[in-house]
């Protein structure tokens, strides 16, 4: 089996069987890439985490790209990224096509009437847990509140918030330097 096929199959497998998105994939990836395939050692895997966390884009895809790149350069990276995304694309397309036929069904609508408030709660819940991870202190607690307020109350694009935070952090860092 060529190394490209191997990269493809490994990441397609990870993409197919990990529920819950990005961070849930880290453990599965570590098991496959470090313990089973010995493509990276533990430290290189940590480097991959750093890169994925500090670059924009989807966490799992960033990781797969970086691991693929370490193995076989840019081509390996492309194979890793596409392999991780492919199972999701296929699965969601099947669901989307299926849904198109059933979306006006009374029972489906009833189910989703129950699911919608749940989704809102599922999005809101991790915000409180993240406060610790993001190192919220008495100096920066206002940042999430101002960002949320700008987006919800003033209709400002989240993109501007990201840009402002990035540039603000950059200037602050330069000043401290």
């Amino acid at each position, binding site marked *: 089996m060529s190394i490209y096929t191997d990269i493809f199959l490994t990441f397609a497998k990870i993409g197919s069987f990990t529920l819950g998105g990005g961070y849930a994939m880290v453990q599965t990836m570590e098991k496959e890439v470090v313990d089973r395939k010995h493509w990276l050692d533990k430290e290189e895997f940590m480097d991959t985490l750093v890169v994925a966390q*500090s670059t924009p884009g989807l966490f799992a895809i960033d990781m797969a790209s970086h691991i693929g790149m370490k193995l076989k350069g840019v081509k390996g990276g492309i194979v890793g*990224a596409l392999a991780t995304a492919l199972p999701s694309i296929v699965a969601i397309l099947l669901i989307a096509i299926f849904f198109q036929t059933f979306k006006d069904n009374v029972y489906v609508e009833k189910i*989703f*009437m129950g699911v919608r*408030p749940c989704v809102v709660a599922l999005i809101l819940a991790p915000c409180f847990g993240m406060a610790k991870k993001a190192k919220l202190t008495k100096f920066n607690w206002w940042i999430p509140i101002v960002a949320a307020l700008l*987006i919800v109350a003033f209709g400002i694009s*989240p993109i501007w918030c990201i840009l402002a*935070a990035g540039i603000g952090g950059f200037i602050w860092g330069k000043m401290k330097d």
Partner: protein
Amino acid sequence: MIFWELFYVFSKIGIFNFGGGYAMLSLIQDEVVNKHGWMTVNEFTDIVAVSQSTPGPIGINCATYTGYTAVIHAGYPTWVAVLGAVLASLSVIWLPFILMVSISKYLIKHHDSKVVTSIFGTLRPTIIGLIAAAALMLMSKENFGDPTESSFVFVVSVVLFMFAFVGTRLYKIHPIIMILLCGLAGLLIY
């Protein structure tokens, strides 16, 4: 031209997405629901539910579904919509990929530097704000029912919301179990 717009919008969403799938939701909602009207608030919420219950990164799931729905709404047949879905998904990936290839070595060496730490020191709290904004924007009468029209739907929705919030936050129940339970509740109650 719907394809060009999908490419442009999802490239933008990809490159400004820090902090994972949930942080991406406010970007997607702002562009896809508020600015372009490619889908309704209800459809968007349903897509988030479907994305959470299927394997793979939530961001890709959302992009695929949005691409498909947007093209269908624009009046094209299914096979064109499939192309739109693939295009939207790949659009999310390509810019971050190029960036990653160009700066990964620098990042591994300098991720402890004051400037990089400082940038993420302000980005991380902002991302919490983005996720909270996504949740707040979905607290609408489309998702919870209009209390002036049907107080029954509204009360049931609020109860399900509290149930799901407490369940995931305090009892660490898996999101997919929560979605299934609330879907079942909806089926039985309404």
